[in-house]
């Protein structure tokens, strides 16, 4: 099992964390450049989305085009293949993500990632967010199974 837990200062209105992303390279000997970025976990998104800043910084090249549907309407978008490194350095490989126009974070982590494992948010005095892969079938992550840390301090 791979798990992490993030303890925030106070109760937060968005579950965010630092992740690293890179364009998926199909061959093992390719150079991979990771970009550290701020991601928001979004159960309202069926798939993950990266901001224009990430697309430009990583010079992502699309592997497909499609139509993204949002509550505000739809728009044409490029689709990219990304590797996502979670705060505990666990790698989710070859995610199909679209580009999006938003500036309050660099990436939305959607249900394509969340459904790979168990997602937990507790809000007694401060928000504690936990995530583990694979799912163990129970809704809460026991802390003895987690790497516990403050927000942003898990990646080097």
């Amino acid at each position, binding site marked *: 099992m791979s798990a992490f837990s993030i303890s925030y200062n106070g109760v937060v209105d968005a579950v965010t964390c630092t992740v690293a992303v890179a364009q998926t390279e*199909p*061959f093992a000997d390719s150079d991979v450049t990771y970009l550290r970025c701020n991601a928001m976990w979004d159960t309202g998104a069926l*798939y993950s989305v990266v901001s224009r800043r990430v697309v430009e910084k990583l010079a992502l090249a699309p592997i497909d*085009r499609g139509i*993204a549907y949002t509550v505000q309407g739809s728009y044409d978008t490029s689709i990219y293949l990304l590797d996502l490194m979670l705060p505990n350095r666990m790698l989710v490989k070859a995610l199909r993500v*679209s580009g999006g126009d938003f500036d309050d974070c660099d990436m939305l982590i959607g249900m394509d990632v969340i459904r790979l494992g168990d997602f937990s948010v507790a809000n007694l005095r401060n928000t504690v967010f936990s995530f583990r892969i694979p799912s163990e079938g129970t809704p809460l992550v026991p802390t003895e199974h987690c790497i516990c840390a403050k927000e942003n301090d898990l990646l080097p």
Partner: protein
Amino acid sequence: MAEEKMERVSTMAEKTDMQKDVDWYYANLDSLLPIYSGKYLAIADCRLFGDFAECLDGVRAMENAGRKRGTYIVHKCIPLEQERREWYYRSNRVHFGERAK
């Protein structure tokens, strides 16, 4: 300066090629779907190069064949309604703030 301009023109051309492949896919969806439902289709120059269980396998096959990313598409072959359900996100977050005076 001229080099930068040429690079931009080249990128635009690649996007146009990709859009042609996307248009070809949708134009042929009715015939592709019964055969390839659920598979990832690698398409370039308005031709089907292969079908794959995983998207990355399609990318690997195309780049093994010398294709640069941005000159082909790897598209999941599913009904349009399902595609619409798979590509939903809620976009901008809703904020409640004070109206500027």
